[in-house]
């Protein structure tokens, strides 16, 4: 079985551990052994070291990557931001021997070293490129035939292509997540602003109301263009925004619809028969009804 280092980041283990559970449950049956990276820290988030000092950022990222290197595995992240930070850091370090020396000098003070041997993947890439939709299909117990999803791949999964291990054929019109949804029987058509930012992360912490302009635009267009049964994302930040902000908009009377939001592996785990109490039980926008529908008897596959 192929091994891959699961890099958790912050949002998933602390705010959405049901996503962590789903990650831990879906990969082994699909042939990927999940290896923990004990002692891993924050990637570090864009608003921390990268906003203060380049070399400090690179050293902290390299320390995380080195944890995987030591075990001889590649890194997979569930959080788009972590994916972006780690990919970019690796790209910068690998491009310059001098940078690599600077980083390793810093790492030497903590008995660590960066070689550049581990690649950085997003879990979406592992699912789409390494496992593949065919294998996913073979492991399903429930089919989502007839349901429609609006997908949100998330910015850091699309750009900048120059520093990413795996890229979309056309990042402005992404298709990987739609393909992955298709494997579950789910219809996931594109929509006009599929590539747009949800406003989470730095923007939300800087000015929540401005960030909500983007989130609402996104939700409204999903609703108007697709009228989806659910939103599916591979970004934990997008997940938190589209789920949480949606409730705030409803509470304020700014929207009158309710679209349950799933992180892709949550949905995959449900389709593989996982217990919703473990893999999909924390959300602001209610999901019970759609989960019941998903795991209903008539959706069970023969």
């Amino acid at each position: 079985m192929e091994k891959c280092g699961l890099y958790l980041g912050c949002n998933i283990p602390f705010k959405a551990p049901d996503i962590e559970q789903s990650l831990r449950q879906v990969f082994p049956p699909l042939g990927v052994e999940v290896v923990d990276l004990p002692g891993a820290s924050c990637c570090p988030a864009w608003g921390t070291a990268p906003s203060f000092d380049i070399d400090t950022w690179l050293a902290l990222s390299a320390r995380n990557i080195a944890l995987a290197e030591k075990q001889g595995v590649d890194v997979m992240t569930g959080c788009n931001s972590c994916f972006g930070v780690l990919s970019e850091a690796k790209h910068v370090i690998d491009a310059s021997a001098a940078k690599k020396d600077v980083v390793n000098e810093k790492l030497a003070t903590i008995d660590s070293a960066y070689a550049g041997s581990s690649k950085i993947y997003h879990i979406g890439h592992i699912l789409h490129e390494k496992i593949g939709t065919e294998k996913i299909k073979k492991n399903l117990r429930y089919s989502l035939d007839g349901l429609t999803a609006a997908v949100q791949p998330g910015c850091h999964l699309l750009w900048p292509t120059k520093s990413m291990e795996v890229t979309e054929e056309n990042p402005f019109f992404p298709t990987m997540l739609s393909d992955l949804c298709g494997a579950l029987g789910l219809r996931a058509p594109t929509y006009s602003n599929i590539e747009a930012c949800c406003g989470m992360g730095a923007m939300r912490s800087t000015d929540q109301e401005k960030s909500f302009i983007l989130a609402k635009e996104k939700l409204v267009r999903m609703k108007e263009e697709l009228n989806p049964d659910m939103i599916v994302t591979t970004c934990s930040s997008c997940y938190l925004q589209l789920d949480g902000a949606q409730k705030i908009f409803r509470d304020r009377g700014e929207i009158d619809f309710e679209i349950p939001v799933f992180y892709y592996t949550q949905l995959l785990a449900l389709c593989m028969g996982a217990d919703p109490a473990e893999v999909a039980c924390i959300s602001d926008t209610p999901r019970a009804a759609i989960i019941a529908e998903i795991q209903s008897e008539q959706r069970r596959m023969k």
Partner: protein
Amino acid sequence: MPTVNLTQMNTHEIIQKVVEFGGDGVVKCIQCGACASICPVSHAGFPLFCKQLIRKVQTGYEEEILDDPSTWACVACNRCVEVCPRGVNPTEVIFAFRRIQANELAISTSSLMSQSNLYEKGHAVLSGESKKLRVKVGLPENPPTSVNDEKAQKEIQTLLDNSPMADLGIF
């Protein structure tokens, strides 16, 4: 805004600084506007998005914009990097300016919180609820990260103590 007398602006100094902090593309920008048209920061209505920041720097602004929080709204989506026809890497210019701001401590208090979280536990984002939530889904109270790992925390503290960030007294 009163009229700006360009002859009284010191453009070289701030451009030099931005270049040193990693935004060397700032001099290549032709102000085409491509980045602005797709920038979430611009869409959300912040005044100092990529193109605008670059122009202000090219014009010699520094102190006038030092306290503007727009740069901190940049989500580093890097879409601007992908569409810029001149290889400016606008994200890098924004981050270079952020670094200038950060070194002058022109940052929000919530941001300061993230820095000390990072220093203490190795995580910028923490949640008081997390233990409860983790147990609820059947996971151990703590993830196998630095959050509960003193050796890892020490390592991170060593790296941060030996960085210019330590001089700012934010930990």
